[in-house]
């Protein structure tokens, strides 16, 4: 039995900020949901089921917050699921929501992912010391910096590639009305001049900590017929591996490579760099752009990624525009960050990305990863109904 066709007909997101002190958690989620429903020309009463995604509950200090939020999210009286796959959760949540339609179980599904990071402190929540252990960890930056160093060593990348990514994404963010960081003066030089936080990662090469939410409306073929510009789901994939294992490749994890291969096959794509018109890739630290470009098969391993970035190919007017929205480097409500990638990919193929629209984008990638580069969630969306 084949998957039922499914399409994104509504995308909504909040204005992402360091602190959204004007709203509660429910208010934050509803800001994104109400925009997505408006976009889809539907109301909460039209929705069959709701899928909620969020990163660790310690961020907000609420255990399974979807329970208390159920009424405000319009989920009361309906099926509600809560997904948590670490940083990839926004993507995984969208995939679970899509599967409700693809399985033929529901016709109109709402999915929302959020994080209200200002309720606590992510560095604290991610580094709660455990007995018996050596407390050398220093949040996500401290975790990923050694692996960035490994990439630089393995690929022979020049020092400034990370800065190219950071400057590009921050400039892209100026075209996105919802982006958190709006720094018009960010340049490669200014990034290189910023403080070294987790050497080799500089301050301007790191993502912010944001409050924000993203919501998608995913519907079946009949419902999508009423939409002027559905984003059809051409492929979804999730892959996981261990945080640590003997001789695990932490720069280019096998789960990432396997996920990409499976995704391109599902979507009927043989040459991703030619066939994908826009990519929203989860890049919380700038160096992950070249790293994931290689892992996803857009470029040769051990050096193709940074060469592609350095060539300008990933800029908005390049051969493979990456993170035209400004990406995670410009807005990072952790639980929602993956869904924002998935939603921005949908906006591109719907021609609805506004100022950061890539002209004529027909197929786009949404990508998220989490844990210690071990959980991967990806989808390809297209402006045309998939033929397979």
């Amino acid at each position, binding site marked *: 039995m*084949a998957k039922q066709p499914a399409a994104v007909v509504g995308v909504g997101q909040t204005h992402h900020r360091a602190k959204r002190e004007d709203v509660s958690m429910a208010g934050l989620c509803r800001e994104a949901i109400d925009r997505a429903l408006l976009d889809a020309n539907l109301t909460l009463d039209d929705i069959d089921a709701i899928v909620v995604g969020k990163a660790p509950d310690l961020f907000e200090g609420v255990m399974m917050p979807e329970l208390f939020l159920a009424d405000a999210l319009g989920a*009361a009286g*309906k099926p509600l699921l809560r*997904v948590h796959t670490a940083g990839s959760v926004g993507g995984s949540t969208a995939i679970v929501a899509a*599967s409700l339609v693809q399985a033929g179980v529901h016709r109109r599904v709402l999915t929302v992912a959020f994080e209200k990071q200002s309720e606590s402190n992510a560095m604290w929540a991610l580094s709660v010391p455990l007995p018996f252990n050596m407390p050398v960890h220093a949040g996500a930056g401290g975790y990923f910096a050694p692996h960035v160093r490994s990439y630089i060593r393995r690929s022979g990348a020049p020092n400034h590639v990370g800065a190219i990514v950071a400057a590009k994404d921050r400039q892209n963010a100026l075209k996105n009305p919802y982006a958190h960081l709006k720094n018009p003066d960010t340049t490669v030089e200014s990034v290189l001049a910023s403080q070294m936080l987790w050497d080799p990662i500089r301050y301007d090469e790191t993502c912010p900590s944001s409050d924000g939410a993203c919501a998608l409306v995913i519907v079946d073929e009949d419902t999508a017929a009423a939409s002027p510009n559905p984003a059809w789901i051409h492929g979804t994939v999730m892959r996981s*591996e261990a945080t640590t294992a003997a001789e695990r490749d932490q720069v280019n994890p096998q789960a990432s490579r396997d996920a990409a291969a499976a995704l391109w096959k599902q979507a009927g794509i043989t040459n991703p760099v030619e066939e994908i018109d826009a990519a929203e890739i989860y890049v919380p630290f700038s160096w992950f752009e070249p790293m994931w470009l290689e892992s996803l098969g857009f470029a040769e391993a051990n050096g193709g990624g940074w060469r592609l970035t350095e060539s300008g190919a990933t800029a908005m007017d390049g051969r493979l525009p990456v993170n035209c929205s400004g990406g995670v480097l410009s807005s990072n409500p952790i639980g929602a960050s993956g869904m924002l990638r998935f939603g921005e990919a949908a906006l591109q193929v719907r021609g609805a990305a506004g100022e950061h629209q890539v002209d004529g984008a027909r197929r786009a990638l949404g990508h998220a990863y989490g844990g210690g580069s071990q959980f991967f969630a990806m989808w390809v969306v297209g402006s045309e109904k998939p033929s397979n």
Partner: protein
Amino acid sequence: MRDVAVVGFAQRQMPEFDGSPTCVELLVPLFAECYEQTGWSRGDIGFWCSGSSDYLAGRSFSFVSAVDAIGVIPPVNESHVEMDLAWAMYEAWLKIQTGEVDTALVYAFGKASAGVLRRTLALQLDPYTMTPLWPDTVSLAGLQARAGIDAGAWDERAMAEVANRSLTDAEKNEYAIRKGGSSVEELLARPMYADPLRKHDCSPVTDGAAAIVLAAGDRAREVRDRPAWIEGLTHSIDPMSMGTRDLTRAPSAARAATAVDLVGVEVAELHAPFSHQELILRRELGLAGDVRINPSGGALTGNPMFSGGGIRIGEAASRIWSGEVSKAVGHATSGPALQQNLLCVLGATTEGARN
């Protein structure tokens, strides 16, 4: 819809697990049991999904080490819900329904004894107007029990009957951690704890883990002569507010019941962590008087957090496999006072599943 069956089930329950909250140590033998039951190895599993809670373990990303128990080279198609095993199973069932995979192994684990469970669960409540007061789970259930007693929906005797039957049935369940029925009179003579609840009205704090294997069509038939075919799988949630809900009812359970066919069910495994909650569920599901309730002893005799609901489905499936019954229902709940409810109707043939 595709015909999908429960074909494997393994569980562990204990009052106090002395190992790591990652529970990898518990999961390894559970997976081995599932392989033994199915004759499969991990390469036969198309999709994995787990359920657990960071706050139960007391740390972020408590579930990430659990994938070690699978052995994840090569990497696996995998997901995680911050929910009970039953909902992890629901996600896996969806994945099979999309046609992407034919088999799935779902698991869940929790070390409730690592903290003070009834206090930890206060973090599930409204964080602005409830959690700052730390209302504990037992108290919330007590408010619900009192509401039903006051409304004449049930009485202490009916609650004691539930507890006595559960404790008696648990004697035959090697995994139950509380067992030994006596008589309704004896139970009623025991002291009140959280008035109107006595201790036997409340499920014991339980550590544990469980795993369920799903398979579609011929993959199920190759494993078992009598796979437990999923005839219906549905769930629903109510608002959390203790004030606006009628605490004597569980509308989400009733809604789930209308979405499946419960006619002919011979056994119902109901996830009722408090005795009066079984009474609510029986009413909402409209179960006939001859339906056997919780032959495993149910949650009152062992309720490992995050697998206690899924275990009800596994127990129901076991009775289909054995030929004891031809139709059964497994139920799972989540949230305070039966806020969220899931029903899984299982049958010995695929006829019901084709509805």
